[in-house]
């Protein structure tokens, strides 16, 4: 398991430089600004070059609760949200967390999240070692 952890860290560092490695790569993470006491979301992309895995949970510091959610918009334009117990990360595929779809929901923020702030985010996977990243807050 130890070597897998090192591989993940190296892969993540490479990804920060825009280079794809073999393993899990988390890229393009950002959080939307929001006021304290409200909710917001983190978006990111996970590329899985290894065997199939699952994102089991996310924990964002500064939020009372962090949940995995998917917004589903029907043909009438009505949106409802479904909480995800886990998010599948198929081998060789890229999973996008993006507005109107999968997102990491931050519930009841302790303080305002403003542009240029960062949010420490901890991700837990079924097979890979946990990953912590610093997510920038920005307005798209």
């Amino acid at each position, binding site marked *: 398991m130890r070597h897998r952890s090192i591989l993940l860290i190296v892969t993540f560092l490479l990804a920060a430089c825009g280079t794809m490695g073999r393993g899990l790569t988390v890229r393009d993470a950002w959080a*939307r*600004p*929001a*006021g304290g006491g*409200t*909710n*917001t*979301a983190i978006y990111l992309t996970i590329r899985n070059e290894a065997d199939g895995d699952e994102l089991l949970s996310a924990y964002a510091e500064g939020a009372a*609760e962090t949940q995995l*959610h998917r*917004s589903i*918009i029907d043909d*009438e*334009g*009505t*949106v*409802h*949200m479904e*909480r995800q117990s886990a998010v599948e990360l198929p081998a060789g595929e890229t999973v996008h967390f993006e*507005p*109107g779809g999968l*997102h990491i*929901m*931050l*519930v*009841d923020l302790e303080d305002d999240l403003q542009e240029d702030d960062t949010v420490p985010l901890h991700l837990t996977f079924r097979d890979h070692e946990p990953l912590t990243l610093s997510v920038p807050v920005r*307005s*798209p």
Partner: protein
Amino acid sequence: MSIPLANCAPAHHWRGTAYEDPTPAPEIPLRKADGTHFRLADWHGQPALIYFGYTHCPDVCPATLADLAWLRQELTAEGHQIRVAFITVDPSRDSPQAVADYLSNFDDQFVGLHGSDQQLAVAKEGYGIYSARDESGDEEHYTVTHTTRVFLVDAEGLLRASYSFGTPRQDFLNDLRYLLGS
């Protein structure tokens, strides 16, 4: 015999879903954050965008409001003024001040509207809006299923088009520039 120039102009290709026979936009019998009654008719003379959402919405509502804030900023830079109204579909949890505070994160010129369940029902019916609190969650933490469309009202108060979630910002801009004659 002269032919009016307007007849020669190409028809506008709406990026949103256009109303073929525009009718007056339904009045919205709700209150602003300061407690005064809102009158859509007071906005005649400027195009307006109307959106129904709620402040605890983590994903679709802030994404839409960020788009509308960008749009208003772009048009303001071009010398135009548009109005934006946000109607909470979660009046039991969204106080008028909470709505105002929330909107100030996007654009301090956005107008938040609030009302009783009965008043909200009238506003929703006028625009064909569905909303319902989801059963999961407790009294403080729950999500609301709701219609995500944005409605465009022209300067004469006519309902001209509506837009689905995820409509590109440039598409909104294209239609508004048409209405503004630029």
